């Protein structure tokens, strides 16, 4: 099959969004390498036919042109993402909310048809030379060269509306949209440019720097990598330097660091041979974080590798891992993650590499050891008692901190300055390579950089503890249900704005897709307050004040919205014989 526009859109959805972790920021970082990789995956799974002579990027651009071109002019009328837009009439607004609720409760996939076109716009931005200014003229010239279509003012406005619709759709799906409009002449082009983290030239420059400076630093963990990046920032391209040194857009900065880390981890920079297609040069590797497993019968703690999926990974098909003489299956856990491996980590500071089988792209899984680890509560099930490296801890968020004794004095110092706090410190003497401590319910208390500068921190601590955001919102109470930001609407939430000083913040609550604000109020930082939703629906709480601005989305569900959870991986049972061959689970008695 030769893919048309819809096929490309669906393929893009599968690799960019389907397995993107809930609650995280979405960047449509698309370049020629990505398109080649996506197409190869489709060819390997038998969906598409291989095109020996033509580049897949050209095939993609042709598909976009065939679908949206009208006598050399871009015509967006064929993209009807109407049902995802906040529509104008009252009846349509109601319908829209019903669709949103349906999507949330049924986990339905309604992929926006605009995704293919938006990806093409980002491709145009990534194809601009690294020395080229991101000006409107430059952008649309490049657009015309690549797509062979003119884009008039009306269609530029239409494209902006598609970005807004896409952002709205992402919000409904509990992702954080990142595309935004620019100022003045950059008003429309800023949407795709904001998605473009690395242009081709930026990437090549970064790979050169890695090749020259990093050959002796294999298997760095994210902590070590960030320290290395900070030391070598001046050698990178201007665009990359700009993003890295822009603290006001922490989401973009973090996403760029992740993208750079993935390049580092793949070691494609090891042999920079421009003549080889990129995917052939690449040793693609998965990375594993840490998952804390507590045996409640004995009280013993185990730490296990927690494999993460990578961006653009097609998770179809089976993937196995070689461990000594065993073959272990990598089993899907949730978008972005496989289930923790049944391997006990004896020394969390030691890196381990495991060979992967079952994929032509992925060759290794690497557990990058570290002397320090912060594990947060499960974002989909915050009170489940399960902790893992799902994300870096946010200020005010309780987490478990695991570290070697070496860091004890520094942590005590941070506590003395009231920058962090913890409930309990315990010894884990079954782990090797030194004495390990586990700090339970540690919290970052202060966000102001000047307060943190009082203590000189090693990178292993600053990576986890140094706050990158000036304000965060801590959510407690209510009745959370499975899924990021899902709560039963009738139970009030207990919120707290965590900031470096106790200043007033303006808060406003809006229902998503509605223009009107439901309520506005003023709230002092670092003091708890209650929030009750007027009824079920999707809401956004906007907080603005001296420390900055943040927005938090909530799905306020009714009991009728709840659905049975189907993907329970660990079902317990009561054994009815010694060998546990006869088991009872609820009303079922069965033999295994």
């Amino acid at each position, binding site marked *: 099959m030769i893919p048309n526009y819809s096929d490309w859109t669906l393929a893009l959805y599968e690799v960019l969004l389907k397995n993107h972790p809930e609650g995280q920021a979405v960047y449509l970082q698309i370049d020629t390498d990505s398109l080649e990789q996506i197409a190869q995956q489709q060819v390997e799974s038998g969906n598409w036919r291989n095109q020996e002579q033509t580049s897949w990027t050209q095939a993609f651009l042709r598909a976009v042109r065939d679908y949206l071109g009208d006598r050399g002019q871009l015509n967006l009328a064929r993209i009807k993402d109407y049902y995802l837009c906040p529509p104008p009439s009252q009846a349509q607004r109601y319908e829209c909310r019903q669709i949103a609720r349906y999507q949330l409760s049924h986990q339905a996939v309604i992929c926006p048809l605009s995704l293919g076109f938006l990806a093409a716009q980002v491709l145009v931005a990534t194809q601009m030379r690294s020395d080229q200014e991101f000006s409107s003229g430059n952008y649309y010239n490049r657009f015309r060269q690549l797509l062979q279509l003119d884009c008039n003012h009306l269609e530029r406005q239409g494209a902006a509306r598609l970005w807004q619709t896409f952002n709205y759709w992402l919000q409904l799906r509990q992702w954080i949209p990142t595309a935004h409009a620019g100022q003045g002449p950059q008003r429309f082009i800023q949407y795709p440019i904001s998605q473009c983290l690395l242009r081709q030239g930026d990437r090549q420059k970064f790979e050169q720097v890695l090749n020259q400076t990093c050959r002796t630093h294999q298997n760095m963990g994210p902590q070590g990598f960030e320290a290395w990046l900070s030391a070598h920032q001046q050698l990178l391209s201007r665009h990359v330097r700009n993003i890295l040194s822009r603290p006001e857009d922490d989401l973009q900065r973090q996403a760029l660091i992740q993208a750079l880390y993935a390049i580092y981890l793949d070691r494609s920079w090891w042999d920079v041979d421009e003549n080889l297609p990129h995917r052939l040069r690449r040793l693609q590797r998965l990375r594993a974080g840490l998952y804390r497993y507590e045996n409640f019968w004995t009280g013993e703690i185990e730490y296990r590798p927690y494999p993460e999926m990578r961006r653009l990974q097609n998770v179809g098909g089976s993937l196995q891992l070689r461990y000594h003489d065993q073959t272990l299956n990598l089993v899907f856990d949730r978008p972005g993650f496989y289930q923790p491996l049944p391997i006990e980590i004896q020394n969390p500071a030691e890196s381990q590499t495991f060979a992967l089988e079952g994929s032509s792209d992925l060759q290794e899984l690497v557990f990058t050891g570290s002397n320090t680890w912060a594990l947060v509560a499960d974002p989909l099930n915050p*009170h489940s008692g399960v902790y893992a490296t799902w994300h870096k801890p946010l200020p005010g968020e309780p987490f478990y901190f695991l570290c070697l004794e070496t860091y004890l004095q520094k942590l005590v110092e941070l506590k003395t300055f009231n920058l962090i706090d913890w409930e309990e410190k315990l010894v884990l003497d079954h782990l090797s390579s030194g004495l390990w401590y586990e700090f339970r319910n540690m919290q970052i208390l202060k966000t102001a950089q000047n307060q943190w500068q009082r203590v000189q921190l090693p990178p292993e601590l600053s990576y986890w503890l140094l706050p990158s955001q000036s304000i965060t919102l801590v959510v407690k109470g209510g009745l959370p249900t499975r899924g990021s930001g899902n709560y039963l609407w009738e139970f009030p939430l207990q919120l707290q704005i965590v900031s470096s000083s106790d200043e007033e913040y303006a808060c406003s609550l809006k229902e998503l897709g509605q223009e009107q604000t439901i309520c506005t109020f003023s709230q002092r930082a670092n003091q708890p307050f209650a929030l009750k939703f007027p009824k079920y629906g999707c809401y956004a709480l906007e907080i603005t004040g001296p420390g900055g601005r943040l927005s938090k989305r909530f799905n306020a569900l009714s009991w009728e919205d709840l659905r049975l959870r189907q993907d329970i991986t660990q079902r317990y049972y009561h054994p009815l014989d010694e060998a546990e061959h006869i088991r009872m689970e609820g*009303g079922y008695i069965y033999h295994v």
Partner: protein
Amino acid sequence: MSEAWNQLLYWLSAQGDGSQKNLSQTCQTLGLAAKPDQIRRDLQLLGHLEVQPGAERWSITRPCWIQTAHKDAWFWTGARVPHTLEQERAQADLEITSQQGAPDRISRRTEPADHVGCTSERLLGYLPDLAFWRAHLVQVDLHYPLAEYQFERWDVERQAFQALPGIPPISPDPYIADYEGTGVYRLKKRVIRRPMDHYTKILYWDGSIGKKHWLIADFIGLRFAHFYDNPTDEELRFIYRESSAELWIPEHQRWPYIYERCLVLASGYLAEKTSLAGYDYPLLKFRGIPRDYVEHFEHLSDTLKIEAI
């Protein structure tokens, strides 16, 4: 309050699995006053939940229709949300009965297209006799010397744990019987240093000659083991009235979990706390228990006496 119990089941069904801690928090949010351990055990008895050994993690069970022991109806157990209830309503007339301290009992008189048969009858066939059950209680070793724990001992008379000033009167000599020391204890570590030190353990010290070990199970099971091992303290008994198919157990002699589950799954109703003329202690009444079940229970042990009324 009945609605809060239903809501708890809806929440558990949507959540799928979790820890005892989040179950406790939800019970609190929903305003359920019963002890979380008791709520968890009751939901297990009704077949809505299963738990990990140690009971700190739970998972919801798959929904199914179970036939009652009298074969006159089917009741629903396992996961349930309003949406699935509506779907079932479209299939048949449902009888919804509220019960104290549990979600509503949903039943139907017509045979469902898909059901698991009479689970209690099948379970009855797998129930071990009490001697076997007692012999297979799990033995555990204490991680630390006795002096590092604070002990409380279950007082059979007062029906409560009583703090001990020091360590219990138990002897390490395997050839000296510890009549004084035998009993159910609650242990807390005095100084917490390692993660495992957090756990309050409820253990049974079996001080018989040649045994001398600590046993672990849920509290109700250990209390029953104590009565079973020491019939001189008090006779184990139950009362049965065939005309109404009702069975009573003294509350303080409550049966170990799997035996009680068989009684509960016979009807889909939890035991009801009640009193009975001639008995000066509270009893638990189970309904819908056929005569052949009782004959089976009589054979579980010579020490378990039946009183027919």
